[in-house]
């Protein structure tokens, strides 16, 4: 199952064969279809994909934060020797906010409007008996300062509505980091912010993570953001992992047609009048588990085999290392029947076949 290989000893989270189904009034929706990925200590993993590709859902599901209608139907999520998907809620609660911090996208609704900023940062520490009240206060002030909030002593007593979006996002990050978690899950942390603020928040976040050697999984649909801060990227589509590779491979040698298309549709201010490329069609809502490749309908490379067989996630260029004996390769994996041709064509493929 999953990657079918041993994992490096510093692997913090290892998700295998995750499947999530949502019960809708008009039948089930298959949101995540056998996603496998892992993240190492101190590593920054980006999850890329369109809206509805299952990136947020897969992370929420391993935290037990799915709504009533969502259900994990298969898979494992090993975090430090425990399978999160099989832990009782009571036990999982001691991990959320303590060992795994979460930052959400919404800067308006993520904070409790009735609690002052300081109390809100102290809350996880007190809930988890991480430290005493006096120490929690000191830590909260230090965290607010670390997040680049000017005059934390004053802001400590502010209500969320008195803060700007960027400031609120910093407070939410401080809440997530309050108990020094091993893993930070950031669900589009900067999407709601404007570009300059986005960069500030990302820089603060990256520095804070580096200081703690904390692993971070960041969900984003902004390739620019991912390219700037991530060590590795994972591309998701229809609840499946399409490609996972280090960021330099993602830039230099994308191997999945969907990755290519995503990259091509990213706007670049330096290339005025560059042809605007979009992916025809929309991301599918799967009413039944995908049989072939879910991207086949929108794919310029699609062949018969793509509609028949689901492509497995395979190592791209280093098959020897993947099967091998020494350190297993986690360099570049792709789920595409025609990956070799895609690599050979590179970015030309998109423009030519637009």
């Amino acid at each position: 199952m999953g990657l079918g290989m041993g994992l490096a000893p510093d692997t913090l989270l290892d998700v295998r064969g995750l499947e999530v189904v949502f019960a809708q009034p008009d039948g089930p929706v298959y949101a995540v279809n056998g996603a496998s990925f892992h993240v190492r200590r101190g590593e920054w993993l980006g999850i890329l994909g369109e809206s509805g590709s299952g990136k947020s859902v897969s992370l929420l599901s391993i935290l037990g934060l799915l709504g009533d209608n969502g259900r994990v139907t298969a898979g494992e999520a090993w975090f430090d020797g425990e399978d999160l998907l099989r832990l009782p809620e009571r036990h999982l609660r001691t991990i959320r906010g303590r060992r795994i911090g979460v930052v959400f996208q919404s800067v308006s609704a993520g904070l409790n409007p009735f609690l002052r900023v300081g109390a809100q940062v102290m809350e996880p520490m007190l809930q988890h008996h991480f430290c005493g009240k006096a120490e929690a206060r000191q830590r909260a002030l230090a965290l607010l300062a670390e997040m680049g909030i000017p005059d934390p002593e004053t802001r400590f007593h502010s209500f969320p509505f008195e803060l700007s979006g960027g400031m609120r996002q910093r407070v939410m990050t401080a809440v997530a980091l309050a108990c020094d978690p091993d893993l930070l899950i950031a669900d589009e942390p900067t999407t709601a912010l404007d570009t300059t603020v986005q960069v500030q928040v990302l820089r603060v976040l990256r520095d804070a993570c580096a200081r703690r050697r904390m692993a971070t999984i960041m969900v984003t649909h902004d390739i620019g953001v991912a390219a700037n801060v991530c060590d590795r990227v994972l591309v998701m589509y229809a609840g499946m992992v399409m490609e996972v590779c280090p960021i330099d491979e993602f830039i230099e040698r994308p191997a999945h047609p969907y990755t290519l298309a995503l990259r091509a549709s990213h706007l670049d201010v330096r290339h005025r009048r560059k042809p605007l490329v979009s992916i025809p069609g929309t991301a599918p809502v799967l009413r039944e588990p995908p049989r072939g490749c879910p991207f086949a309908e929108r794919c310029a490379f699609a062949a018969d085999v793509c509609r028949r067989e689901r492509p497995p996630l395979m190592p791209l260029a280093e098959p020897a290392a993947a099967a091998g004996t020494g350190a297993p390769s986690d360099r570049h994996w792709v789920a595409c029947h025609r990956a070799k041709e895609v690599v050979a064509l590179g970015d030309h493929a998109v423009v030519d076949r637009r």
Partner: protein
Amino acid sequence: MSSVPSLIHPVPSLVFRRRSAWRRFVRSKLSVAGLVWLTLIAAATAFGPWLAPHRPTDMDFMHANEGPSWQFPFGTNNLGQDLFSMVLYGIRYSMVIAVVATAVAFLVGAVIGLAAGMRGGWVDHVLMRFTDFMFAFPGFYFAMILLVTLGRGMPSLILAIGVTQWAGFARLIRGLVLTMRDGDLVESGHAIGASTWYIATRYVFPNIVNSIIVYTAFTMANMMNQEAMLSLIGFGPELPVVSFGTLMAMGATYDLGYTYLMYIPTSIFILTLMSLVAVGDGLQEMLSPKGAVK
């Protein structure tokens, strides 16, 4: 003066928000009048025994059946008891019952409503069927049975009229919880590892309390009404203890010739009920977020 807004103090203050909310309440003259009246009633409830010029049990046969005067502001009954003092004691009795019964109904309803809304699933199902049953239950007649069984008096009255009223709170609170449960705020509470009960009380409840306050005002009016009706048909406190209901009953039965005995307590009661409703309306206007943009 330039019309460019100042950039020095861009932070809105809570004081400002409070004041604009108050302004919305004051806009309705009826609500203000209701509030003034309820303040008087509250004062009578709190200080009644010290304000009363006579003890309500004192009989003064030399002044029986007298109309209002300086000595007896509301007049006296056929036993020469001072109606003004009796009204003060009656207000106290009825208000205490209404407040305590409302508080009990609120507490029970809040626990059930929060539990049903937050837990969902079979917990929600069971609790809400129970609530539906309470709604359909003819509570007034059940209250009579309860009073006969337990004996008359304040604790039985509170139990009798409060025992069915929690259902409204439960249903309201559950509905409000459901609007928030799948929202970002609740999710962020779960994300820090807080327990469901902690999230319900610290995250959800403060956000829905406005709507509950409004409903509370109406429920209190309903409680007073129930108490008065039970007293009117003879299930109220036993003399010499008086409530609004027993005073109205007294005025209605054996003092037919002396109409002020009927008019005065009944008018005060009607005014109190109407004030509660008016204040409830005012609160609704004041606390509704829509009011702010009008």
